[in-house]
């Protein structure tokens, strides 16, 4: 049912932010979904027609505009479109927005939210499939949220808005049509992961589309008699190492699903926790499921072969149980 789609809830959450405060505006050259979902987004854009700055294909320019608008009293939600296009605006996203509060000794705030549909969207080929999130974790001063469940999207947006931090919203093209509980939860403390399924045998960590995959894997694992605990990171910066450590302290086993390339990825960061803070908690080596270090091929069987699928998560968890 359309009502329970993640995408629909997401659009409503954006609308709610805008209804609550007339200084919330949309800036950008895209919207919040792909071509297939414009029907769901159109009502939002119609409702707020005069609060949308429709821009040319000039990502660097309009992300910069959003920074300047945020400094001067607006709360811009920036629709970058495909995650790869964030690269065009990289100087503004990683070298302006996150530095300004610090560079002013805390006097200037940059409450802005960048939105992009990142990730392997299926047949986007090499240039339209970027996962910029791990790179963004290398920008101190930038908050990164990745709502993965419909119940979380509204509360996380609201929390990000209240934080007044420059924020990158890691959205995923394939999340739009996911369905699930939509009853919004309480507004979370930013940087607090959610345990979305309790289990005792193995910890599965995911975020965005990979969280969805982890949940599906957990269901399959249950049938195989394996009781998986599933953690939704929710925010990549701040990253909640406590919750992950707590869970692994119980299970001793960890599978991480992360569409990023392997090196210096979200998964590397999580795994590395266990060489320090989480020292001694692991009973088995960590299983990291990344997209291998290969540009994304167009051809469907090649692409599918490289994605961290549900089956791969299941297989990894089973290996850890042997």
């Amino acid at each position, binding site marked *: 049912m359309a009502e329970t789609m993640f995408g629909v809830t997401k659009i409503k959450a954006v609308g709610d932010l805008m209804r609550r405060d007339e200084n919330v505006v949309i800036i950008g050259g895209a919207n919040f979904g792909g*071509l297939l979902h414009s029907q769901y987004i159109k009502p939002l854009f119609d409702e707020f027609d005069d609060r949308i700055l429709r821009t*040319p*294909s000039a990502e*660097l320019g309009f992300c910069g505009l959003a920074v300047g608008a945020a400094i001067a009293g607006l709360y811009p939600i920036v629709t970058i479109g495909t995650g790869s296009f964030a690269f*065009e605006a990289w100087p503004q996203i990683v070298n302006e927005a996150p530095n300004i509060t610090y560079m002013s000794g805390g006097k200037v705030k940059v409450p802005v939210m960048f939105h992009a549909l990142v990730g392997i969207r299926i047949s986007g*080929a090499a240039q339209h499939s970027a996962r910029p999130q791990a790179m963004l974790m290398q920008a101190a001063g930038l908050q990164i949220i990745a709502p993965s469940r419909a119940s979380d999207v509204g509360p996380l947006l609201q929390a990000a808005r209240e934080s007044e931090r420059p924020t990158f919203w890691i959205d995923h093209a394939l999340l739009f049509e996911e369905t699930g509980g939509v009853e919004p939860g309480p507004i979370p403390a930013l940087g607090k992961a959610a345990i979305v399924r309790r289990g005792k045998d193995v910890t599965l960590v995911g975020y965005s589309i990979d969280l969805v995959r982890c949940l599906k894997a957990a269901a399959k694992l249950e049938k195989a008699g394996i009781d998986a605990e599933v953690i939704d990171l929710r925010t990549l910066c701040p990253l909640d190492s406590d919750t992950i450590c707590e869970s692994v302290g119980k299970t001793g086993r960890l599978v991480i699903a992360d569409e990023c390339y392997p090196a210096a990825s979200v998964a590397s960061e999580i795994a590395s926790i266990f060489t320090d803070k989480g020292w001694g908690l692991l009973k088995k080596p960590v299983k990291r499921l990344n997209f291998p270090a290969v540009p994304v*091929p167009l*051809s469907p069987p*090649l692409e599918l072969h490289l994605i961290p699928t549900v089956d791969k998560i299941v297989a990894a968890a089973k290996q850890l149980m042997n």
Partner: protein
Amino acid sequence: MIPVMPKDDCLEAFRKMLLIRRLEEACIDAAQEKRVPGHFHVYIGQEATGVGVISALDKGDFIYSTHRNHGHLIARGADPGMTLAEILGKSGGYAGGKAGTLHGCAPDLNFPLSSGIVASIIPIAAGTAYAMKQRKLPYVSAVLFGEGAMEEGAAYEALNIASLWKLPVLFICENNSAEVDRKPGGGQYHAPNNSIIEITDLARVMGMTTVIIDGLDLDAVWTGARDARARAIRGEGPTFIEVRTDTWPGGQWPTLVTGRTDIRHAWTNEVPSQYAKNAKWFTRNDPVLSVARKLLMLGIAGKEELQKIDISVSHQMAGAVEFANQSPYPPAEDAYAHVWPT
């Protein structure tokens, strides 16, 4: 209207235009059967541009394109079977299925790459022109892109450098929103989002030679590109050519809203009743029909000859479709090959 191109070249160009049309029709057929991975952009309505420009180039010249590259590949002489196989992600494609529609290439034909990132190909093409100049080779680099690319800073920076250093590059801006109200600020695909209303004004104030050409006028495109190439080779630097085409009514999404092209409409001047609301397409905007009419008018070809070309092209395309359909998907292990050059 076709006074400059030699007769044989005219016919060859027409053949290529028709081949492009048939290829795109085949793409749309495949898409309707959900066999095209990802979304794609057809070249219908712009055939005279790609074919006109690329016919005027030398084998040693380089060609670069964007997301809308199918027609450019065919114009360059790429094999339609391999082109379609690539679009379908098959191993028989030019890149073994790794590139797909967004990144069409035919490296053996000096067509190394299409970038799917708007404007990103423009600096790359200028760099190849620098290589030609630096290596003292008598070749140019030509890049075809949409008017949307002129909204990106990448285009501005590349044009500036090319003009400063008089690089031998042809910037071909395919303005396919020429029929849209030119008042800026529409904020949509296919709508002018540039405060520079005359697109060529930027290149002009940068000191480049600029040309504006009607995208139905194959001969003018060919001539414009030929002259630009000659200037570039003479060391006179880049030319910026804007080719204006009216948007194909079906350009937004791959359905054949004007139907499969029937070459006979060129002389029957019929508008099939189910397409009545796109009558203008049949009577004015279709470059294939338009060029066919000119060939007839100028006596370069008769109806029979045009129909013979159509039969041969359609036959060629049928073979291409067969090839692409039969071509297997690459095996999964192929995913790991070609990250690094060998």
